[in-house]
């Protein structure tokens, strides 16, 4: 029905599209909560900032996993 190449392209696009949804929402949520926390307590600003950067890195890593799978599907086997 669909050729091998077509299925591969569709799979790549699908993986990346769905895989970016969760992290995008997560990062937005983290950003909003940290800004709120800093607004409430400006003195804790550097602690909140460190924690926020860390949490954003973890959330982004999941998007990167999806990207790696997409690249593997497209370029390797």
């Amino acid at each position, binding site marked *: 029905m669909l050729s091998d190449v077509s299925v591969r392209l569709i799979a790549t696009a699908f993986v990346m599209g769905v895989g970016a949804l969760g992290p995008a929402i997560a990062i937005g949520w983290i950003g909003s909560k940290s800004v709120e926390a800093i607004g409430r307590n400006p003195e804790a600003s550097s602690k909140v900032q460190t924690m926020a*950067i860390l949490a954003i890195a973890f959330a982004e890593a999941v998007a990167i*996993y999806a990207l*790696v799978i997409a690249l593997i599907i497209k*370029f390797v086997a």
Partner: protein
Amino acid sequence: MLNISLRAEDVFHIGSLPVTNAVLLAFIVLVVLTVVSITLRNKIKMVPGMLQNIVEAMIEGALGLMDSVLGNRKTSEKYLPLVFTIFLFVLFSNWFGLVPGVGSIMIGHGADAVPLLRSPASDLNFTLALALIAVTMVNAFGVAAMGIKERLSVFFNFGSPIKFFVGILELISEFARIISFTFRLFGNVFAGEVLLAIMALLVPYLVPLPFMFLEIFVGFIQAFIFGMLTLVFVSLAVTPHEGEEAGH
């Protein structure tokens, strides 16, 4: 079509050991960093010149940042070598990978032509090695700071079924950290390379410029995150956990 290879290509062999283009550039970064460090160290002056000034400012900044995580200057100085070296090595690997010529100067003939140099972190072996080093050193520092019994009791705790389960989860999360360190850096750098190659293929003039800025920024951020995460894991491993029996 472009030749985008997930695997770093071999450029020459030392005996029977293949040397890839990523290893070659990583070695060049190593030599540059070592030469600059040794030269600076031999020429330390009380009234610093420009380069010494910049480096001192960077180290002050790094120590300040580590203080906010670890608590005091003495612990920061103890763990600065590991964290700052990882940061510098990844940073300069990423930035050297953006220099014109990396990825475009080819070696070999005809269909066998491969790039002579390639961004080191776009090779999974490089990031995996760094991740293994980071996690091993975190555990080594944990053992050095708290003793081997304390460290093992984080993972294998026979106090109660819940603590045992938590210990197993901790063990699994150590391995998950290795994987996430590896793929975060690899994914960012490799995707950046693919992006730059495709942009240059589509519109060679002007359009790749913002993407180069993006890659410079991403290179810095990923190096920073690798260093920061190593720092945070070290601080988690060396601070004694929940309040002991004299509970409060």
